[in-house]
């Protein structure tokens, strides 16, 4: 019986021109979404390659010019001198921290277009570089890219609704259903077969194109990631099919089914996520960035005013940087203003101030971080209110373009920033103590940077994030519930229709 229904349904579908148009739309959109995803990945890779090239070029140029610099007596400002630790630390260093896209990055642009994926590092306070961003037309960020995640979350349900909304109801309206039931066919079996066939013509091209693209263009992608992606798409499609079955099971007209399904789509894909987001943001209000500026200025001024206190704290935190001969003088308490400190250069003071400013701003930064984490935690908890938010979370995490990987990247960037600062601060102190910065009256500083390749370089250590199999499970549970409800309603319809047939 099943093969008969399937054969009949395929024959019917062949006649529907609109349906084939939807298949063409699915194919075109799948290709376009994949293309956009890979374009974005390749654009990011190009920027990262350019940054690395610039970094390498700086190293090579410095190596090539070393001999000339050694022999030159031409006056040069330290801030223009690539062979001076201070010039490198504060102005000239070309040191990038970059986040390379994952092999699965093309699946979802996620937040990678709004969050920075590269930082040019200098020995400055983190507030000076952490807010860098890639400058593109802001409208492109507001509207977002047409990527696979968008296609799956927004368009796939609409395509599924378009092919499924008149299943069974068309047969009912035309009176065919009664005839079919006379031959022993149950509405449930007919509907489920119709849905499977109709959904297949949308889902199969999508999966075929996307998986082929992953296998062809995503070097190093694991089979597990591909399986997870397929699982998410199938579970999400199943949810919409189950929902369609439930709506259809009420036995109303096709137009009614379409209207209800579109309203449900609107609720799940647009209204619930945006309302949820607004509620979460309102419940966990982030501190104001405008006030943050105010605090930053206040703290910087405070640090500038209490210079000796800052230096005392600095040498208390870093006794190894105090001149050993004068180490006793470094034994000062940060609370007491004192001038009894080791001899310090402008650069050491500058680094001490940077550290002090960062320390003073830490509670403000922590406040932002705490709110962001609270918001994200709630967003994850409430994501089960809509299948769209479940799928978004799963795809963003899978692509490595979500909040988790970005946070991990920022942590590594900040750690690298500290490493770089420590690298320079100890060498600057040592050079100052050896008199390298002013070997004689009016002459250039001695060379204190011989090989830029020795400066710590950033390599992003990719943390393996667990795949959100729970998302698939939740979608399957929701689908199961909807299908059970639809089955119950269809059984009722079966009874009432059978009675009608008998009468």
């Amino acid at each position: 019986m099943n093969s008969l229904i399937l054969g009949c349904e395929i024959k019917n579908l062949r006649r529907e021109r609109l349906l084939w148009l939807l298949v063409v739309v699915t194919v075109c959109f799948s290709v376009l979404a994949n293309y956009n995803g890979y374009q974005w990945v390749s654009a990011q890779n190009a920027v990262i390659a350019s940054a690395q090239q610039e970094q390498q070029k700086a190293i090579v140029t410095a190596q090539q010019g070393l001999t000339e610099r050694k022999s030159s007596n031409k006056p040069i400002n330290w801030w223009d001198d690539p062979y001076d630790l201070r010039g490198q630390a504060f102005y000239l260093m070309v040191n990038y921290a970059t986040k390379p896209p994952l092999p699965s990055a093309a699946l979802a642009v996620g937040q990678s277009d709004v969050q920075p994926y590269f930082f040019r590092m200098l020995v400055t306070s983190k507030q000076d570089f952490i807010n860098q961003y890639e400058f593109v037309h802001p409208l492109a960020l507001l509207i977002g890219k047409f990527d696979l995640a968008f296609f799956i979350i927004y368009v796939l349900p609409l395509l599924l609704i378009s092919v499924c909304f008149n299943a069974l109801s068309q047969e009912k309206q035309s009176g065919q259903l009664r005839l079919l039931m006379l031959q022993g066919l149950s509405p449930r079996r007919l509907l489920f077969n119709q849905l499977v066939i109709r959904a297949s013509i949308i889902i199969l091209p999508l999966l075929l194109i996307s998986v082929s693209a992953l296998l062809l263009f995503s070097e190093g992608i694991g089979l597990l990631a591909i399986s997870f992606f397929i699982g998410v798409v199938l579970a999400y499609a199943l949810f919409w099919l189950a929902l369609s079955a439930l709506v259809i099971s009420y036995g109303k007209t096709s137009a009614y089914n379409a209207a209800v399904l579109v309203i449900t789509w609107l609720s799940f894909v647009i209204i619930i996520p945006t309302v949820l987001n607004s509620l979460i943001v309102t419940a966990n209000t982030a501190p104001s960035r405008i006030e943050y500026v105010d605090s930053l200025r206040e703290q910087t001024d405070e640090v500038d005013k209490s210079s000796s206190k800052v230096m005392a704290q600095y040498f208390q935190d870093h006794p190894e940087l105090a001149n050993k001969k004068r180490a006793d003088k470094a034994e000062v308490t940060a609370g007491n203003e004192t001038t009894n400190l080791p001899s310090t250069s402008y650069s050491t003071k500058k680094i001490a101030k940077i550290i002090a400013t960062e320390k003073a701003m830490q509670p403000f930064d922590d406040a932002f971080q705490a709110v962001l984490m609270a918001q994200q935690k709630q967003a994850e908890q409430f994501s089960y209110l809509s299948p769209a938010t479940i799928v978004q979370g799963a795809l963003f995490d899978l692509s490595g373009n979500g909040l988790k990987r970005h946070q991990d990247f920022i942590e590594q960037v900040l750690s690298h920033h500290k490493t770089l600062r420590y690298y320079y601060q100890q060498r600057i102190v040592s050079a100052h103590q050896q008199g390298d910065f002013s070997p004689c009256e009016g002459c250039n500083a001695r060379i204190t940077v011989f090989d830029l390749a020795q400066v710590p370089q950033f390599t992003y250590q990719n943390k393996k994030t667990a795949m959100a199999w729970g998302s698939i499970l939740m979608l399957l549970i929701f689908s199961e519930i909807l299908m059970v409800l639809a089955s119950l309603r269809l059984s009722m319809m079966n009874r009432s229709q059978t009675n009608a047939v008998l009468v």
Partner: protein
Amino acid sequence: MLTLKKEWLESKREGRMVWLSSIVLLLLGCALLSSWHSYQQQQVQKQQVIKSERERWVNQGDKGPHSAAHYGIYIIKPDTPLLIVDPGLSDYQGSVLRLEAHKKNDTLFRSIQDAIQMQRFGDLNPAFIMQTLIPLLIILLGFHSISAERESGTLKQLLANGLNPKRFYIAKVLALTGSGLLFFAPVVLYLMYSLLFSDSFSADRSTLFIVSYSAYIFIWSILTLSVSSYAKTSRSALIILLVIWALACLLVPKFAIEDAAQRYPTQSSQVFQSKLESEIYTPARQQAIAQFKQDTLAEYGVDKVDELPFLWSGAQLQFGENYANKVFDRLYSQRRKQLKAQSFHYQNSAIFSPFIALQTISMSAAATDLAHHQLFTNAGEKHRRLIQNTLNGDLKDNGLQSSKQNQRYQADHHLWEKIPDFHYQYPGIYQLSEHYGRAALCLILWLAALVLLSHFAIRRIEREGQ
């Protein structure tokens, strides 16, 4: 009149539509209230920070003018009250700009960088509801308005009884537009309030806002009824209208901006910043400074800079600023040109989507688009140059005495007070028509095309009665 009454009764009977409409109205009310609350808070914070920043600048104490130039100031982007209705691109652009020596910075603190990933679904603000959801509601209210009459056979009966098709159609359009405008009511009330209590600056913007949103609602109403009159069944009318909605509000904007970015690409910030540095700090700059030194010495007929009647370092710093400014002007104007081309290309796509037309006009009226942002950053840059000029000029003119005494010259609050407060007000909206003119034209074209379509729709209804 009878048709209008019938439409009203039918809408009332449609329980789910009443519910849905109530939900959307409630959402719109909440969005408006929440936007208003955060706007009020933000304005207080902005005024507070502007005041503190000024106090900090004036009371920074005695120091060298160049140290003050590096100390810099932060300026805050001004808002219009229409931000409440349409925040536009404000979350994606940042509202704080640091003005300092040697550097032209981009604005800081884009809210989107502090957002969770769910934010990418969109922000529940009044503009989002009115631009995206209300058209969908109009479709759901009106897709079967004429097709259902046809399906049930009442259309033929009505026409046989002497119903004037034109009046019938116009009444349907009015009823549907009226329902659409009902959703717009909370926003109109807010705008009326702002019109009554604000200056002519906001009044022009509010008027443009009301007119364009009303036109948008009218467009969707006519579109819905035209499709409903052509479609054989309500089902096909609904499908066609949903496809048009999805294309106009979701897909065409994405394709349009993606296409604009492909056609008029901008350089990545990494390349841009590296280019800025490599074009400013070049041997050519060193040579230009050396040449300037030679020219200055020759002009004053002296051999050494110490013999000049002013402090050389002040003049050199200003020369460096002017040199960098030329590079800034060239590179930033290249970037601005590409961004403007992207904006125009996007606006041209409004021919395929009334959403794009309205979105552009709405953001312009609310001063939350890129053009207004650039007006602010340009004004900021002008102010930065004024600061550098004043400070370097002071160092040049007054620093010589201290230098001769082997001391560092220090200026005081008299100099800091010479730098005026940064105040910026956007020009009137009609002066900026270049930035939304194409969109406005497209909106008018949509109106004209749909009025023409209505004409054919009425004739089709007429033919059915024959």
